[in-house]
């Protein structure tokens, strides 16, 4: 039998048993529309309020600063498009990084086509931006800075706190896409002077199609989704109470200590993979940097000489799910813009890398199984190549 080893937790995570139990209960019992004025509606409202409180506390925000959305993409789109719309009279410049998620890059591309000026901060080979580049880019026209908390492909972290400090006395609003970081890092929006922050529930063993956008009191723009007056008129549409409740349960299961613990465990997994591959004499390099600071759940490696699609397909056939980059519709794998930004378009890393990402249910034996299989695949392919010569 083929085992199922799931090592693509940066793409999405399985729902935890606590979340599943909670959502089952809410789906069955709490079905009222939270905007209604009878008991069933009040039941839903109570669950919403409770969930919002748990989530607000997790980032040191006030309850009314949390707007539930359909997930990370909607949160990012809202923060970017609506800021541009609300503030275009104050300037037309936006600063971001070259390694943001598509949910940030695509709206920015759209705004560029509509007259906005966007600065894409470059990254070094470790996936880091430089603060001096940022300071240089910032000008009187800047109305928005959108920089991710941590990267989804290589795990590098952006200097959020420092940027927040710099922007404290600048007109630009500061948005950060924390979709990958939220489940692993303690985030304090007040301490870091964050104006807007995006998250998604399904990255931390919660349900899909739920997320929130934190929006600091004082930051105002028209709702992106227009309709009813839900979410204090900031996001129309009947609230997904079971999903939101499940999200809150997932967050409740991630206290500071648990997040620190996971960062430690995942860091050890990385070291085990490095040791295991070395022991098997596999020629590889890390994309980005191994350090204690980065997001530890993503590990991106360049296995020299083995193309991404061959490695990914072979691992899949062995029952192991890893990421080989996003597949475009025609089936070919599109080159990663993150690796391209770090290493240039000509680097063999672009076509010979895989991303391994850990989650709550990853086990020690999963890691060993992965190492064993990578070694097996590399040996088979190398052997065949030698036979041809």
């Amino acid at each position: 039998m083929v085992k199922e080893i799931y090592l693509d937790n940066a793409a999405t995570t399985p729902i935890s048993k606590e979340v599943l139990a909670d959502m089952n209960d809410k789906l069955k019992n709490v079905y009222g529309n939270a905007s209604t004025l009878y008991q069933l509606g009040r039941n839903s409202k109570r669950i919403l309020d409770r969930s919002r409180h748990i989530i607000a506390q997790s980032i040191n925000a006030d309850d009314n600063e949390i707007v539930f959305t359909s997930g990370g993409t909607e949160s990012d789109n809202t923060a970017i498009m609506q800021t541009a719309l609300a503030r275009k009279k104050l300037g037309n410049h936006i600063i971001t990084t070259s390694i943001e998620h598509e949910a940030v890059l695509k709206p920015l591309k759209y705004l560029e086509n509509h007259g906005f000026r966007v600065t894409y901060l470059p990254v070094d080979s470790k996936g880091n931006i430089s603060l001096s580049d940022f300071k240089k880019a910032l000008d009187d026209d800047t109305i928005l800075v959108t920089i991710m908390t941590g990267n989804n492909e290589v795990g590098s972290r952006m200097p959020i706190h420092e940027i927040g400090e710099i922007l404290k006395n600048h007109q630009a609003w500061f948005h950060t896409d924390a979709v990958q970081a939220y489940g692993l890092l303690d985030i304090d929006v007040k301490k870091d002077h964050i104006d807007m922050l995006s998250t998604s529930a399904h990255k931390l063993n919660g349900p899909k199609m739920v997320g929130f956008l934190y929006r600091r009191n004082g930051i105002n723009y028209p709702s992106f989704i227009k309709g009813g007056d839900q979410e204090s008129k900031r996001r129309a549409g009947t609230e997904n109470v079971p999903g939101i409740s499940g999200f809150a349960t997932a967050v409740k299961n991630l206290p500071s200590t648990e997040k620190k613990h996971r960062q430690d465990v995942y860091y050890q997994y990385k070291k085990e993979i490095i040791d295991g591959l070395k022991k098997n004499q596999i020629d590889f390099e890390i994309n980005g940097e191994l350090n204690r600071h980065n997001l530890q759940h993503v590990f991106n490696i360049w296995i020299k000489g083995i193309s991404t699609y061959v490695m990914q397909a072979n691992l899949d056939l062995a029952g192991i799910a890893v990421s080989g980059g996003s597949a475009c519709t025609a089936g070919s794998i599109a080159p990663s813009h993150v690796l391209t930004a770090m290493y240039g378009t000509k680097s063999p890393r672009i076509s010979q890398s895989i991303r391994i990402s850990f989650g709550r249910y990853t086990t020690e034996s999963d890691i060993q199984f992965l190492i064993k299989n990578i070694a097996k695949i590399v040996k088979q392919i190398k052997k065949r190549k030698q036979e041809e010569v």
Partner: protein
Amino acid sequence: MLEVRPSIVDSPESNRNDGDIYMVEKDKSHTRVIVGMSGGVDSSVSAYLLKKQGYDVVGVFMKNWDDTDENGVCTATNDYKDVAKVANQIGIPYYSVNFEKEYWNRVFKYFLNEYKKGRTPNPDVLCNTEIKFKAFLDYAIELGADYIATGHYAQLVRDDQGHNHLLRALDSNKDQTYFLSQLSHQQIDHVMFPIGGMVKPKVRKIARDAGLYVANKRDSMGICFIGEGNFKRFLSNYLPAKPGKMMTLDGEVKGKHDGLMYYTIGQRKGLGIGGGGKYGNEPWFVIGKDLSRNVLLVGQRYHNPHLYSTSLKASGLTWINDASKYGKDFRCTAKFRYRQRDTGVTVHVSDDGSSVKVDFDDPARAVTPGQAVVFYDGKECLGSAVIDAAYNHAKKLQYV
């Protein structure tokens, strides 16, 4: 290379059932077959039949041509969507592999170069030799394949040495051995053609009975990268066209041509000449090309004598299996283009074995430089060469 399994038994002539592969070997569930899936009904049914027989089947879609638009967006190819739908229906994993670079370098450059020379190449022959049964085969082996399979209409039979021989398909209308004729036995020793022993209506029926999404999908037409689009416009993107005169052999100017590369020997359509010749209203045909003067030679009548040849010379001779038993001079049958009846021929192989002279039993029409001449011994496809010149007795016809 994969090891050859001596235990394999293959009997293509006897009671062949639907898609039965006739290979007795290690447990089928441990025999990985990687199927080249195009999203069409033939390869879909091939994958379906193999899965039903219990093989460890994996579907792979080959992307050989870049149809990315100017925004750098890789467009949704409906074919890949169909592969995904059918593969999920059958319950097999599927992947895609990109051979655009290989196709460009090994097939398309040759294709253009042949047109530049005024010849009419057959890229589908080369695509099989260089891509489907080379690059794809290599990729499949990297995925642990024991065999690859495709939806080609052709059959295989294994000899005592474990080498596969290529036989015509059961459905003679669909037989694709012409396109497979440049392969070597090493390229087909680990191949399966699950539908080669079936007629097309039966393949359709299997697809319909199984409820495959693509059961009623139209057959694809034309060269893969051009599709059914405008061939002239396509070619003009890559090669500068040099317009010139259309003339009869007597030197009478009949009109203008758009560039010699756009025409092939024996072509009737698209000349824009109606009647007005020695033979009254008889239609006009391309009967030759004069590259030095950039003149397209035209003549009347389907059976124009200048379209008929009695022998040809061809180079790049390849045999699928060792052909030494036939000697240097032998009789067999041959096709000079796809979808043509065989002609009885006498083959004379050059001393170095790289080229042939082929004498026809009966004159053949429109033997075109650039096309493959493919040799058959009964049902077996022996090999092929690329036609360089056609002759009417001693006289070389001015075809390029």
